[in-house]
Every structure is written in C-alpha cells, then in structure tokens.
C-alpha cells in the first residue's frame, strides 16, 4: 500500500521566506563590508559582490517556494520518512524502533508564526521534522511516544 505523505501549512512558507531573507541579508552584508574595507578599488570584487547579491535574491524569492513545495513527511507504524530540499533532495528514513528521544523545539520565528520542530534522536544521530504547526507537532510527538512504548511492551512480552 502506497504511503501518504503530508505537506506543510502556509505558515511554514512564510517562515521559510523570513529565514531566507535573514540569511541573505547577513551574507550580503558580510560580502559588501569585506569589499568596501579591503577591495574598494578592485573591479573584480564588485563583480563577485554582484554575483553574490544575485544568488541572495534568488535565494529569497525562488528557493523558499521550491523548498515548501518539495517538503513532505510520512509517519506510520514502522518509520518516519522526511523528504526536503531545493536543488538536491534529501530523504531521511528513521525506524520508530530506533528512536530514543523525542523533543519539540521552537525558535523565535517559530513562536511568532505558531510553528515548531519535532526532533527525534536515535543512537546514530538526530532527524528533524520542521515547520509544523504547534498542535500538529505535539500530536506527532505524543503519537510517537505511544508507539515507542507499545514497541517496548511488545519486545518485553516476546522475551
């Protein structure tokens, strides 16, 4: 049976635009400052800064929308499956049985937009499901905890 993937809410798109804007502003400011301080007379430095500004502009306008369209996740009885990316797509597959710890994290922008991030920790590292609405994040965390407890009980019964 083909698994159904869930997509993000519109607030997630706003959050992605805001974070992209902040990141682009910082990168552009650093490059412009370095050019003005050390390479003010070099024409090649101006070319480099213009290229960086162009990349920042595309990073702010196009990249968040592409990222929003591509981001999806699926949680079933066996595993968590998260797919995200802009140019390259990354897919993380975490068996529920391997999860040691579940946490909900909310940064300052997440708090303003009513979003949160569910972090699941295994013995090999951490995987996040980001840009979730707070209620949904809490529901997912609760559901995962129940499943982990159920697995632990089943394992004990088998022993």
């Amino acid at each position, binding site marked *: 049976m083909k698994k159904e993937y869930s997509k993000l809410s519109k607030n997630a798109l706003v959050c992605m635009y805001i974070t992209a804007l902040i990141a682009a502003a910082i990168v552009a400011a650093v490059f412009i400052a370095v050019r003005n301080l050390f390479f003010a007379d070099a024409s090649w430095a101006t070319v480099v800064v213009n290229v960086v500004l162009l990349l920042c502009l595309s990073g702010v306008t196009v990249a968040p929308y592409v990222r929003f369209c591509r981001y999806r996740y699926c949680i079933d009885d066996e*595993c968590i*499956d998260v797919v995200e990316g802009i*140019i390259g797509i990354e*897919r993380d597959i975490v068996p*529920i*049985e*391997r999860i040691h710890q579940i946490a909900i994290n909310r940064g300052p922008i997440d708090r303003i937009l009513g979003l949160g991030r569910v972090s699941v920790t295994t013995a*090999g590292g951490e*995987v996040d499901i980001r840009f979730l609405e707070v209620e949904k994040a809490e529901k997912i965390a609760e559901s995962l905890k129940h499943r982990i407890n159920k697995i632990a009980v089943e394992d004990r019964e088998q022993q």
Partner: protein
Amino acid sequence: MDIEKKKFRCHVSIIFEQCAQVIGALILYMGVQFIDLWMELFGDDAAAGALDEIAGTLLLGVAILVLVLLFAIIKWRKTTISLEEDAIIWEKNTLHKKTLTIGIKNISSINIERNLFERIVGTAKLKLDTASLSTADSTDVLFVFRLEDAMRYKEYLEGKASISDDSRVASTGADEKEAGHGKTISADDAVAAEYTSQLTEILRHCFYDISIVSVLFCVLLTGVGIYLAVDSLKSGNIEAVTGDIIAAVVVIGPFLYAFFRSTLGKLLDYYNLTVSRKGNQIHMKYGLLKVKEYVVPVEKINAVKIRQTWIGRLCKRYNASIECVGVGDEKEEIAQLTLSLPYEEMNRRLSGLLPEYNLTPVKDMKKIPKAALLHKTGGLVIFTVIVTAFWIGTAVAFREMGATEIDKTFGCIATALILAIYAYIILTLILQMRTEAVGLYNGFMAIATGSFGRSIVITPYKKIQYVSINKFPFCRFTGLVSGNIHILAQGLNSIKSVPYIRETDVELLKEKICDRSR
C-alpha cells in the same frame, strides 16, 4: 559480593601520572634556570641583580609545582567509584560536582590498559564505555587500581554486563543460497576461538598498511634532496656542499623519521595481538610498551570492517576490525580482529570469532551501475571550470605585466601540474567504478568504498539507526541515488557513505531496516 556498595578511590599513583607532563615541563624549565644561574655566577659578566631574578623564577616554579600537586591530591581524594548491584556510580565532589550513574547492562566495552609506568608500579587502568552516541568519542569512566583489583572488578563486571538471551545473536546468513554459517555460540562456551598474531604476520601487516600518500611524499622529498645535493656538488665548494647536505638532512630527516616511525610503530602497537571469542564476548589483547586488553560484548558490535590498502589490494591481503563504542575512542586504541591476511585465512578466523557475520556473499559484491560515472564526472567538470578560469585570469594578468622567460617556465610547470592532477582524478574515477558496491543481503548490508584501497563495511540491519538518501537533479535520467547510513560509533565512523544505488533499492532497504521480525 563483597565489592558491592563500597566506595573506592583511584590508586595514588594516578596523581603522578596526571601531573607527569606539568612536572616534566617545570623540571625542564627549572633546569634551564639553574644553568642560567650557574653561568651568571661564574661567567665573565656576573651581575648582582641576576641572582635575585633567577632565584625568584625558581621559587615561582616550585610554587606552581606545589599548587599542581595539591590540586591533583584534592581531586584524587574527592573522586570515588562504587559498584551497586546493577549500576556503577562515579562521583567527583570538587568545586564542580559531578555524579555519573551507568547501568551495568549498558556497558559496551570493559578495557584494561597498562602503560610503562603502571607496569612498573603494579597498577592498571580500568576503562568502561557505554553504547551511547553522546559519549562515543571519549571513555565514559576511567579508574586506576592495583592490577589484582582491576582484574577482579573486570571479571565481576563482565559477569554482569550484557549476558542475556538476547545476546545470543542469531546468524545473519540463514538463507542456504547464501551459504550462511548459521552458527550461534552459547553464553556458556569456554574459549570458542583464539588467534595470536606472530611477529612475521605483524611485520607483513606493517608493510601492507603503508599509506600511498606517505610513500609518494617521502619519494618526492628524497628526490628533491638528492637533486639539490648533486647540484651543490657541481659547485665544488666543500663548505657550501657540507652546509647544503646538513640543511637537507635537517629538513627532510624528520619527515622520513615520522614515516618509518608510523610504519614500524605498528610493530609495537600490535605486538602479541591476541583475539579470542569467549561466550558472547570478544577479547582483544595487544601492545609491547603499553599493554591493552579489551572486552566487547558481541551484541555491542555495530559493524565489521574489512579493509585492503593499496598494497593489500595488489597482494590480495585483507584485514578486519570492528566498529563499536568504547574501542577506538583514543588514537592508540585498535579494534583489529585480524591483521593483513589472505582472504581464506581472514574468513576462517572471522568464522571462529564472529560466526554471526556471514562474509561469503561479500567477496562477489555487485559493482555500482555504470550510469554512476555520469554523477562522478561532476567533480571533473568543476575542476575544469576552475582551471579554465585560472588560465584566463593568469593570461590577462601576464599580458598586463609583460611576459618574461621566468613566466614561461612557470607556465610549463603549472601545465604539467594540472595535467598530473587530471590524470590522478581520472585514475581515481576509474578505480572507484571498479571498487564501489552495495549489497542488501538477508540480515545485513554490505558497502564497499574506496579507489586505490578498498573498505567493506558489513552491518546488520538492526544496527542501522537511520538512513539519509540524496537525490540530485539528473538522477531522474540515471535512476540512481546516493546517501549515508548512520550507526552507533565514535566520531565520523558513525556515518557510512552509500555509493550510488537504484531508487528501487532504497525502498527495499527501508523495508529491511524497519522489519522488526529480525
């Protein structure tokens, strides 16, 4: 048990061990000051004030030494360890209090280590590690006891740690078609297998384990040294020649020494390497100046790695090691099961030590699809773009400055260097295509990576914590993806790169790692 519920401190010799470097540095410093004092007192330009200055510096050195020793003594007094029925409690009651409670069942390795000083005073370090990612890069608990006490506590903990029905690991190759070994070893077995490496085997391993980069670097340095010496000899000036030769030895000597030290140093590290299987544990012992003993429960082994260096590949020699938390935290720790051996001998030893791991299918792993070459040439394209940009920029700059004979020589050298890099990249690509492979077998996954050398990692699906897959834009044309699997191991060893596999195989891998019936 009489050792339970008692608090112990480290052996007092740990104070001197921990302060050894500081004491050594202070003694060296004060020695230099004494020499200065002597020369000031009896030298031609004795100065009255110099005596006070040097005496003051000496007093400062003594004061620092006393403070360091005092601090070390307080720390020793305030640090204790106690063994409860199911847990170990380590406490440090200094200004920064810390209490660490470790469940005995979570211990993944119990190690005994003795350096030269400890062997002289009759003590040993007892090192405990748990199967935890947060502490994977360091030893969890380290304590120094008298040798007899350390061995007693080690035996006690081995008896309690990870011996359960679950620790009888079922075979990973139950399918008859894959010729699995299918053997389980019960917890009651005495020594099921034991292998000791002889001196000739260790010497051969030192040879097979030589790094290609080190060899090329040493050859290059020696060649440059000889060229400069010959060039200098042509001048006929004895003084200049002697000076040049001394300078060459001073510059090149340390590199050659480091190369031989690292190669032959393995002789000391692997001396008397003995690996045995007792019940559900692997025991390892090795070392000449620093003797180390490790005990690793089989269920805590997260992967087996079979490695061939470039020489090993030419001579068809393989060596095997384990990936687990607790062994390999520090540079001197070696998790070697076998040294460089022919495949049949290595397989025979591994069958005795770890029959749970079926190696038979691994020898004929299917290489990655040819379409992966399209993905790999991306690096070559990027390098070509960079080189083209470099040449254009250099040509423009030279035209503006005016080319000379020296610039033409530089151009020839740069061209030769770039062609050499191209040749290296292309050779690496060809060798990678011949080396890389991925196998999804019944119970375990095998991944082969490398170019000149080869490394095969074999890990049961239940040890894979999670999988990350990367898909790039042109993957839709080739149908291939790459990624990583994550296991419990220290540092970068926890991430194993998966070379290009078909997207359909990703679904198969997902099914296998999620299957709870294994």
